[in-house]
């Protein structure tokens, strides 16, 4: 295991190669096109024994993976933004059929205002029944892809996984990355042998059927939800096992310098790296700041998050997407997690990185100062804070 300088796209492709994939289908889309190019090249060179199917659109991509997964294939694709939008309809069918498909999403805004990086694409399908894991850097992208198959294919789960890594910031940024050896991945990830899928003519099973609303439908949906709940345990176990092999352990959430912290930032994705640097510097100056990274957004790890933030006075969420006219996704989840507790910390919510606006150290320091000042004056900031908003102080735009 040696360190290589790899872009997020190359890192993900190399990770997928180690997972004994049967079938890949993908479309070009900025900023993740190099993933499918690289995988196509691996297949062309004979370095990867898989089928690469060139599709005629993202809708067909997810449909092809659906068919292949029913036929017993381990499958992969990568997309983002509008590509994910075009895929939306078949995306909802995959969890219903309990197909453990893994997809990398290089987060890019939904809608055509820009095509930099935010989470509005994956957040638009957060209720689809896919597990969603947001990663901080290219190494975690590699580790999460490999773990994703083990989580998805676990018989307690059998749900698809989206590995969400910020477009541009990670997909095109080169970082030193370790790709686990084939032997290590082979010992970690058993071959895909689904018991619940068969096209045997003697059994003649039907997939994707309709069920009677009064008899089964709600009960099926309840079962999907229970599988999602069980996924919390599986994500933790798989992360620990992977950690014992590589020294890199990932769980549902990752607390960073939270001990005795007065203020805790709650982040997801690539901004976490910058935020950790700021937290370290503020700690050095004597400010009691900490951070919790939410890695698994679906299932949302309420208990693990609560354990990490319950001692703090202030919790500040940083959402990279907007729910227009409502509360943003991460803020909503954290608010719902904190609310039942009587001595809950004060919660403030910020938009950071929306539409690809850079989340710099300076902007984060400003956010920390602003929220601490408000707290010291015994008040909270009621509206959302727009980090790095042009033309005024952060929260004055509301």
């Amino acid at each position: 295991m040696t360190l290589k300088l790899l872009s997020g796209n190359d890192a993900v492709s190399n990770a997928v190669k180690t997972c004994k994939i049967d079938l890949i289908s993908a479309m070009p889309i900025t900023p993740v096109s190099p993933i499918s190019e690289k995988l196509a090249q691996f297949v062309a060179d004979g370095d990867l024994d898989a089928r690469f199917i060139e599709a005629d659109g993202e809708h067909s991509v997810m449909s092809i993976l659906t068919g292949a997964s029913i036929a017993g294939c381990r499958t992969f694709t990568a997309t983002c933004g509008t590509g994910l939008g075009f895929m939306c309809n078949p995306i909802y069918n995959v969890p219903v059929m309990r197909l453990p498909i893994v997809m990398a999403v290089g987060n890019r805004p939904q809608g055509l205002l820009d095509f930099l990086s935010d989470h509005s694409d994956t957040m638009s399908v957060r209720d689809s029944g896919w597990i969603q894991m947001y990663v901080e850097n290219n190494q975690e992208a590699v580790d999460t892809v490999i773990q994703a198959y083990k989580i998805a294919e676990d018989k307690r789960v059998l749900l698809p996984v989206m590995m969400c890594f910020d477009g541009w910031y990670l997909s095109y940024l080169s970082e030193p990355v370790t790709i686990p050896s084939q032997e290590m991945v082979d010992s970690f990830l058993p071959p895909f042998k689904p018991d619940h899928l068969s096209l045997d003519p003697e059994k003649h099973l039907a997939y994707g059927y309709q069920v009677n609303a009064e008899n089964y439908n709600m009960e099926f949906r309840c079962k999907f939800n229970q599988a999602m709940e069980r996924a919390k345990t599986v994500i933790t176990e798989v992360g620990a096992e992977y950690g014992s092999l590589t020294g890199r352990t990932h769980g549902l959430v990752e607390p960073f310098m939270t001990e005795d912290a007065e203020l805790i930032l709650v982040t997801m994705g690539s901004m976490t790296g910058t935020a950790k640097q700021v937290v370290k510097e503020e700690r050095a100056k004597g400010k009691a700041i900490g951070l919790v990274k939410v890695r698994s957004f679906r299932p949302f790890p309420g208990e693990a998050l609560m354990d990490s933030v319950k001692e703090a006075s202030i919790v500040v969420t940083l959402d990279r997407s907007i729910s227009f006219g409502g509360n943003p996704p991460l803020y909503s989840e954290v608010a719902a997690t904190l609310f039942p507790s009587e001595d809950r910390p004060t919660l403030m919510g910020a938009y950071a990185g929306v539409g690809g606006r850079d989340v710099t150290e300076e902007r984060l320091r400003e956010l920390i100062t602003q929220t601490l000042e408000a707290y010291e004056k015994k008040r909270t900031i009621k509206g959302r804070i727009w980090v790095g908003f042009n033309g005024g102080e952060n929260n004055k735009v509301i």
Partner: protein
Amino acid sequence: MSKQVEKEMRGELVAEGGPLCPGCGASLALQFALNTLGKNTVLLTTPGCVCMGTLTFDLHTLVKVPQIFTLFENPAAPATGVKAGLDRAGTEMNVLCFMGDGGTVDLGLGGVTGVAERGDPVIYICYDNEAYMNTGNQRSSSTPYGALTMTTPVGKNLKGKSRFKKDMPGIMASSGAAYVATASIAYIDDYVQKVRRAEEVTANDEGMAYIHVQAPCPTGWRFQTKDTIKVARLAVQSGLWPLYEIYSDEFKLTRRPKERVPVREYLNTQGRFRHLSDEQKDLIQAHTENRWRKIDESR
């Protein structure tokens, strides 16, 4: 059905008592396709009459083969995945998409031509009942000129559909399908032979096989349920529904009406054409003559 074709059948794979309408043309097309291919077949269907008729509620199905219910707008792409997955496992099975005209000619067109272009060895049968019948008879781009549907009504300003239907078999041939054919449930021997041919072509890995079969619909077309075969036969005899196949770039008529009957005889069997003016009927006749002129010139 001839004795020869009867021998070709590989079982009764569609159970009786399904919820399809009496006199349903699509139901016949499904039965003969499945019984010809046999149970070593994966069936894919989309929302539509046949899907509702084969995948019934409460975890029971009428069809005795493995079955996948796909989305309306992706009738074909899942078949690519299924075929690739079966290949990888070393399993030889027919993969049959049995879809209506709405899913094929409108919503799923991109995906259907994608399978043809990639050359995936999948059998695709489009049962063309010439409208969105399961939702109650709304216009599709396969609805013929002049037909009354719920969205091409007859009123002061509109007299049924104002456009002719898409040439779907032509689209498939030019998209790279290895085998393309039209068929009719009134000519079962011809249909069964074409299904068999589609099986051979896909088994030989030559590419996609596409069959476009007319499926008269008593409910939507407004004729008596006993007349389904008569209507289908008149479509062929009038020249409105030519029976042909295209293989290796070669166009071949599989049945030429000795003498074409006027299209009026076909149109008059159905309530959906009742409002047509003489001018409109003449236009359909002229369109048909023109089509046959092209067919004859190309031979």
